[in-house]
C-alpha cells in the first residue's frame, strides 16, 4: 500500500517557466459549465497571474468525486481544520522538512531574522471573487490583532522576544513583519496551524461588523439573537479557526480549496464545495482542487465511523479510527470497504507521560516530587514493554519525553535514560527518598502518613489511558507507592491542572520532531491548556512578578530558550536547542513511558496523491495544504 512520493522537481521548474507565459489554464467541468452560463468569470480571471504550481505527490489528477468523511456531532472542528483549514502564507513540505511558499509567493528575511517581507500573488481572490491584497493582512493586524477588545491575548506565533509584531504595507502586494528583535523561528511558526491568522480575515466582508467601518453596526447586532454587542457579533462572524465558530459561518470568504455551504453543528451533514478562485494549479495547468466537494456526515459515536468505514462510506480518514486497537477489524473489512492503509507519522515526544506537579501546593508532596531520585525511582518501576505489548500491540518503544529517533535533535540518552525496568533499582532510589513503609507495605511520606499520589486520568486520544493507568498503579504498588486513579472527563481534568489543583496526571506531549523548537512544552515550563508540570515556574517565566521563582537551573532553561528563539540561522538554532535539551533532560521534569510507532489512516483504493507517510502533530495541521491535490482515479467515488 505504500506509495512513494515522486520527486517532481523538474516538472515544477518547467511548469513555473510555463506559468510566466500566457497559459491556458484548465478547470473542472463543473466550473466550466458555470462559466458558460455566465455565473463565473473565466478561469484566467479567477486565478492569480502567477498561481502556485503544486508539486503533487504522484502525478496530475482528474476532476470529480466527493470526499466523504464523518464528523462527531460536537467538538470535532479539527476534522475540518485539518482537511480544509490549514492553508497559510507559507506551508511545510509534505515531509515536514522545509518551509515553502503558499499564499505568499516568496519572502525576504533580514540578516538578524527580525524583519520578514512577504510578496503576495497578483490577482489573487477570496472565495467570493473579491481581491485579496496586503490590505486584508493590514486589516487583520490593525483592526483585530491590535484591538484589545477582540484580541485580549495575542497568539504566540505573532509575538517575538521583543513583543508583538509590527506589520507595515510596502505596496499592494508586499507586507513587512517586523519583530524589532531576532525571531528566527517565525517562518516555521507561520507555516504551522496558528499561522493562519493574517490571511483568514477578508476586510471587504468583515469590516461591516465593526463600528469603525459601519456606523450602523448596531442594526446588525440587533438582528443577531446570539450577539449582545459588536464584539460578540464580530466573534460570531470571524471566530478563530480552531473553535466551532469558524465553521458555523459559511458566509465568511476564505482562501481555502473548498468553502463551506452547510455549517457545522446544526445539520446532519457538513458540506464544503470547491472554491472556484483557488490559487493553486498542477503541472498540467489544471486548477486545483480536483475533488468537487467534501462532505462530513455527522455521527454521535466513534463506533459508527468504524462501521461506515467497513461499509465503504468513508473515502479518507485517519482521525478517530487510526488506532492500533482498530487495526485488526479494519484489516478484516478491507475488501468489503475497498480501502487501504497509509502511514501516519503522528509521533509526539511521548504518548504517555506521568506529569507530576513540581509546583504542588502541599509542601510534603512537593518536596517528594521535586526530588529527582523519587522520579528516577518511579521511572525504573515502570514496566514499559508490558504496557506497549498489552495496549499497543508492541507498536512502540520504552522512552522518556524526548525528541524522536530520526529528528535532528535526537540523542539516545535523552530517550532511554531511566527507562530500564528494574524494581530493585527503583526501590534503591525510592529508599533514598521514602525509606519507611507502613503495615501494608506502602511507603510513608516525610509527614508520617502514607505517601499517596492521586492521578487524574481521562480517556483521551484513543490511547487506552484507563488501562494504562491501572497498569501503572500496579507497578507503583510493587515498589510500595500508592498511586490512586481518578477517572474523569477531560474538561474537568483540564480545569484541575490549569488551576494547579492536582498531584499528577497522564497526558502526552508534543516536541518529538521539528516542533520541539516552537512547542517545547515538556522541556521548558510553559502555560498551556494541556500540559502542566510546573505551572508556577511557567508563570514566573512570563512575568517574574507572578507565579513562583524557580531554581537557578530552570531559570537557565528559560534564558536558553530565549537564545534559541533569537537565533537567526538554523545551525545556531539547532546548537542552542541541543544545549537546552541537555539541560532539560538533566532536570528530568516528566516521566515518559512510550514513544509510539507510526499510526495509520485509510484511503479508498482509488484515492490518489495521498501523502504516505503523512506527518501530523499538534501544531502541524496536515493533510490540509495537500488535500487539494488528492483525486479520485476515474473521476468518481468507487461504488
Amino acid at each position: 500500500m505504500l506509495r512513494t512520493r515522486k520527486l517532481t522537481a523538474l516538472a515544477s521548474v518547467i511548469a513555473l517557466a510555463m506559468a510566466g507565459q500566457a497559459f491556458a489554464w484548465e478547470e473542472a467541468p463543473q466550473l466550466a459549465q458555470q462559466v458558460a452560463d455566465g455565473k463565473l468569470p473565466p478561469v484566467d480571471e479567477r486565478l492569480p497571474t502567477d498561481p502556485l504550481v503544486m508539486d503533487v505527490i504522484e502525478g496530475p489528477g482528474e476532476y470529480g468525486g466527493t470526499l466523504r468523511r464523518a464528523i462527531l456531532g460536537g467538538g470535532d472542528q479539527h476534522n475540518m481544520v485539518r482537511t480544509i483549514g490549514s492553508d497559510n502564507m507559507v506551508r511545510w513540505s509534505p515531509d515536514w522538512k522545509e518551509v515553502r511558499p503558499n499564499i505568499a509567493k516568496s519572502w525576504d528575511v533580514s540578516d538578524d531574522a527580525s524583519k520578514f517581507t512577504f510578496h503576495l500573488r497578483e490577482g489573487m481572490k477570496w472565495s467570493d471573487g473579491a481581491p485579496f491584497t496586503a490590505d486584508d493582512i493590514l486589516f487583520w493586524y490593525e483592526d483585530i490583532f491590535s484591538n484589545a477588545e477582540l484580541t485580549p491575548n495575542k497568539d504566540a506565533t505573532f509575538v517575538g522576544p521583543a513583543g508583538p509584531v509590527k506589520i507595515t504595507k510596502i505596496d499592494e502586494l508586499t507586507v513587512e513583519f517586523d519583530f524589532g528583535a531576532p525571531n528566527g523561528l517565525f517562518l516555521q511558526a507561520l507555516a504551522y496551524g496558528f499561522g493562519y491568522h493574517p490571511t483568514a480575515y477578508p476586510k471587504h466582508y468583515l469590516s461591516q461588523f465593526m463600528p469603525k467601518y459601519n456606523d450602523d453596526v448596531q442594526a446588525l447586532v440587533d438582528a443577531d439573537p446570539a450577539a449582545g454587542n459588536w464584539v460578540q457579533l464580530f466573534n460570531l462572524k470571524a471566530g478563530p479557526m480552531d473553535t466551532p465558530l469558524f465553521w458555523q459561518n459559511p458566509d465568511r470568504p476564505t482562501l481555502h480549496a473548498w468553502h463551506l455551504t452547510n455549517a457545522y453543528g446544526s445539520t446532519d451533514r457538513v458540506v464544503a464545495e470547491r472554491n472556484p478562485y483557488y490559487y493553486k494549479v498542477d503541472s498540467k495547468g489544471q486548477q486545483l482542487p480536483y475533488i468537487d466537494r467534501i462532505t462530513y456526515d455527522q455521527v454521535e459515536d466513534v463506533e459508527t465511523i468504524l462501521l461506515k468505514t467497513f461499509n465503504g462510506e468513508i473515502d479518507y480518514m485517519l482521525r478517530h479510527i487510526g488506532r492500533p486497537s482498530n487495526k485488526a477489524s479494519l484489516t478484516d473489512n478491507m475488501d468489503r470497504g475497498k480501502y487501504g492503509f497509509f502511514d501516519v507519522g503522528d509521533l509526539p515526544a511521548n504518548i504517555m507521560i506521568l506529569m507530576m506537579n513540581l509546583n504542588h501546593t502541599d509542601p510534603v508532596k512537593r518536596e517528594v516530587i521535586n526530588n529527582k531520585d523519587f522520579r528516577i525511582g518511579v521511572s525504573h518501576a515502570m514496566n514499559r514493554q508490558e504496557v506497549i505489548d498489552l495496549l499497543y500491540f508492541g507498536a512502540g518503544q520504552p522512552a522518556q519525553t524526548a525528541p524522536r529517533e530520526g529528528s535532528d535533535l535526537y540523542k539516545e540518552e535523552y530517550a532511554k535514560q531511566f527507562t530500564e525496568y528494574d524494581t530493585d533499582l527503583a526501590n534503591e532510589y525510592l529508599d533514598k527518598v521514602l525509606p519507611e513503609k507502613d503495615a501494608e507495605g506502602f511507603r510513608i511520606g516525610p509527614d508520617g502518613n502514607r505517601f499517596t499520589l492521586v492521578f487524574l486520568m481521562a480517556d483521551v486520544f484513543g490511547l487506552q489511558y484507563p488501562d494504562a493507568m491501572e497498569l501503572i498503579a500496579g507497578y507503583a504498588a510493587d515498589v510500595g507507592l500508592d498511586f490512586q486513579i481518578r477517572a474523569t472527563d477531560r474538561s474537568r481534568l483540564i480545569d484541575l491542572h490549569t488551576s494547579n489543583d492536582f498531584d499528577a496526571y497522564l497526558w502526552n506531549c508534543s516536541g518529538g520532531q521539528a516542533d520541539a523548537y516552537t512547542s517545547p512544552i515538556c522541556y521548558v515550563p510553559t502555560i498551556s491548556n494541556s500540559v502542566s508540570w510546573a505551572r508556577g515556574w511557567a508563570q514566573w517565566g512570563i512575568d517574574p512578578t507572578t507565579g513562583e521563582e524557580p531554581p537557578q537551573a530552570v531559570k537557565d532553561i528559560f534564558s536558553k530558550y530565549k537564545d534559541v528563539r533569537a537565533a537567526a540561522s538554523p545551525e545556531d538554532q539547532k546548537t542552542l536547542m541541543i544545549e537546552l535539551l541537555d539541560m532539560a533532560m538533566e532536570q528530568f521534569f516528566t516521566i515518559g513511558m512510550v514513544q509510539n510507532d507510526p499510526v495509520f489512516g485509510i484511503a479508498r483504493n482509488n484515492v490518489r496523491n495521498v501523502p504516505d507517510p503523512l506527518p501530523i502533530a499538534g501544531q502541524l495541521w496536515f493533510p490540509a495544504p495537500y488535500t487539494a491535490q488528492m483525486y479520485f482515479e476515474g473521476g468518481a467515488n468507487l461504488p
Partner: protein
Amino acid sequence: MTSIDSASEVQAVESVKTPDLLGPWALMWRQFRRHKIAYFSLFIVGFVYVVALFGEFLSPADHLATNTRAPFAPPQGIHFLAPAEDGGSRFILHARGLKMEIDREAMRRHFVEDPEKLIPLGFFVKGHEYKLLWLIPTNRHFFGPKDPKQKVYFFGADRLGRDILSRIIMGTRISMSIGLVGVAVSLLVGVSLGGISGYYGGWIDNAIQRLIEFLRSIPTIPLWMGLAAAIPLDWPPLRTYFVVTLIVSMIGWTTLAREVRGKFLSLRHEDFVTAARLDGLSDWQVIRKHLVPSFASHIIASLTLAVPLMILAETSLSFLGIGLQPPIVSWGTLLKEAQNIRTIIEAPWLLIAPGAVIVTAVLALNFLGDGLRDAADPYAN
C-alpha cells in the same frame, strides 16, 4: 376454569394435612413454592449472593492480574480425558494450553489450543492470597489450575489478559450490593414518605405527591450526570461507590412511595384500623403493628423488582463513564469495556459473558419478585 378447580382441590388436600392455623407468612411461602420458576429463581439469587460473599475464594485468578501472553485469549474448555502413554485414555481434569501467534501487520493475536500441553485442574487449589470474608487470610481457591503458575481462562481474557470469570465474580459483589443498598435506601425513603403521605393525607400528602411528580418529571440521566460529576475527585473509590449507589437509588423510591401510599389510602378506613385506633393506639403503633404487616409482602415483592432496575441503572452510569472508579469492577464496567465493535468482532465472549450474567441475575430477581407478588396477592387462587 379447570385450573381454578384443580387448585382448590390441592388446597383442600393440603389443609387436611396441616389443620393448624397457618400464619400469613407460611401461607405466602406455600403459595410461592408453587410458582416453579420463581422458586427456582430464589436459588439462583441465593447462589449469586453466595458468589458475591465468597468472591475471592471462588475466582480462579486475581481479577486485577494482567498477562501479556493472554490478551483476548478465548475461553478454554474443561477436558476430562487425556491420551495416556499406553495409547488409551486416562481420566484427568484438565484444560489445554494456548499458544499465541502474533500477526503484526493486522495487529492481531491468534490463539491455538495445544492438545499436547495439559494444565491439570483441581478443587481447593493454591493461588493468590486474599482474606476470606475480609477476615481469614488464605490462598486456597475453589477451582483452578493445580499449579499456581499456570493460567486458565474459563470465560476468556480481556484486552489486558485479565481473567473474565474472576472479574465477573468480583463484579458480582459490587453490582449486587449496589442493588441491595440502593433498595434499602429506597425502602427507607419510600416507605416513610409514602406512609406519611397515605396515612395523613391532606396537605402533607399533596406536598409529597408534588415532590414525587417533580422528581419523576426530571429526566434521570441529566440528574445522574449532574450529581455524579459533582462528586469530588479526591474521594476514595469506596466513598464514590457509595454515593453512586445513593444516586442510583433516587429512581427507586418514588415508585415505592406511590405504592405504599396507595396501600395506606385503601387500608386506613378499614375496620381493623379504626378499631385499633379506638383502642387508643398511637399513630405510630397503628402503622407499625397493623398497617405495615398487612402489606409487607407487597413491599418485599416491589423491592425484589427494584434490585434489577438498580443493577441496570449502574450499567447505564458506567456506560456514560461516570460513577465507579477503577480498580473497582462491576458488571456495568465490564459491559462498558466490551461495548465496541472491536470486541464484537475479535472477542465476543467479553460481551457475552457479563451480558449473560446480568440477564440471568436480572431475570432471576424479576421472577422471584413476580412470584412473591403473586404469592402475596389475596385474590390469586
